[in-house]
């Protein structure tokens, strides 16, 4: 007969097995009543927890949606305001259904330099938000009779301009007699659209690129002008989990606002 001595320092593995077996035998556990109560209470608490998580999810989606809408509202107001107030002209896009506006967006200015040039050309020192692009820009330039809007045909770099600032360039304009002093401003042809639930911009004849997240209510949003020249923007916020119109923000501005 083999005898295993508990607590023997010579056989630690056998001691551990014995200890586990004895602890299992001596385990009390729950009674049926205790187990039932604990399961019921646990289920109740879990049910409350899941309901709370569901509410949390809905509230989070609402907050996220409102944040995206606020971003859209601010960006739309800033972009439309900048293009309308600083641009050369605005007009509704024909047959657009009241959601589009053709704009001439201001992109920069240039000082005309008294440098001898060929007819139709002028040397300038240009300062602007971006470099002029003959594919899509026009120029507002002073003439003997007032001002004229002419196409920008070609832009090349120059070594010497005038004044202490700006990039020297030689512009070829669709105008035979170009003055050699004054300020010219260049504008981009484009159109603003509120379609497919976002504010979009079409540059020249390009595609309509989104400037904001697509969170606007399709029927509750629009962009247009009225007879007085005012530009009206209407932005509708849609519900989080369906297409209902929640609220509408209306904003107006004028091309001639003095700022």
């Amino acid at each position: 007969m083999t005898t295993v001595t508990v607590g023997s320092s010579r056989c630690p593995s056998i001691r551990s097995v014995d200890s586990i077996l004895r602890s299992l035998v001596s385990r009390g556990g729950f009674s049926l009543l205790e187990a039932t109560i604990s399961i019921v209470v646990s289920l109740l608490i879990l049910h409350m927890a899941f309901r709370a998580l569901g509410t949390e999810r809905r509230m989070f989606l609402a907050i996220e949606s409102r944040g995206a809408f606020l971003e859209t509202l601010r960006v739309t107001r800033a972009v439309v305001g900048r293009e309308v107030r600083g641009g050369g002209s605005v007009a509704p896009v024909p047959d657009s259904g009241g959601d589009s506006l053709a704009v001439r967006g201001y992109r920069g200015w240039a000082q005309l330099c008294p440098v001898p040039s060929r007819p139709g050309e002028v040397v300038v020192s240009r300062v602007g938000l971006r470099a002029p692009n003959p594919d899509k820009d026009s120029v507002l330039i002073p003439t003997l009779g007032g001002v004229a809007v002419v196409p920008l045909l070609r832009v090349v770099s120059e070594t010497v301009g005038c004044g202490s600032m700006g990039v020297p360039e030689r512009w070829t304009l669709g105008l035979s007699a170009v003055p050699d002093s004054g300020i010219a401003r260049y504008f981009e042809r484009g159109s603003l659209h509120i379609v497919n639930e976002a504010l979009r911009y079409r540059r020249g004849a390009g595609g309509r690129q989104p400037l904001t997240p697509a969170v606007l209510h399709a029927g509750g949003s629009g962009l247009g002008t009225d007879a007085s020249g005012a530009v009206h923007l209407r932005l509708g916020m849609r519900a989080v989990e369906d297409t209902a119109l929640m609220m509408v923000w209306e904003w107006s501005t004028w091309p001639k606002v003095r700022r």
Partner: protein
Amino acid sequence: MTTQTTRAGFSLVDVLVALILFEVGLMSVLGLTSAATRLSDSALRLEGALTVGESVADSLLSVGYSGPGSRITPFGVVRWGPSSEAPVEILVTPIGSLDGEPGDTVPLLRLLVDPTWAGSGGPG
């Protein structure tokens, strides 16, 4: 002779208390989200008031000032008129102020405008 050992586990009360504490913590998080929802509501209202106030300011700067006026909008009542600090003051107050005493509601927005300012207009 063997030694009787007892296992140190969780009792039923331990488990229930832990679950209740977990639920209380979850409710606290829910409270935070609820506060965030209220704040986002407030931000939307303020943005609405700003939209309305800015429209009136643009109108005054564009077509000029022809006297005090008011308008009711979904975001509040917008009033404009002379002020001691500027030629024209624009106030946007919550709709609720219509039923209360004058001045009992803090304006959502206050803008000061000088319609006579001769800034540079847009071209063409």
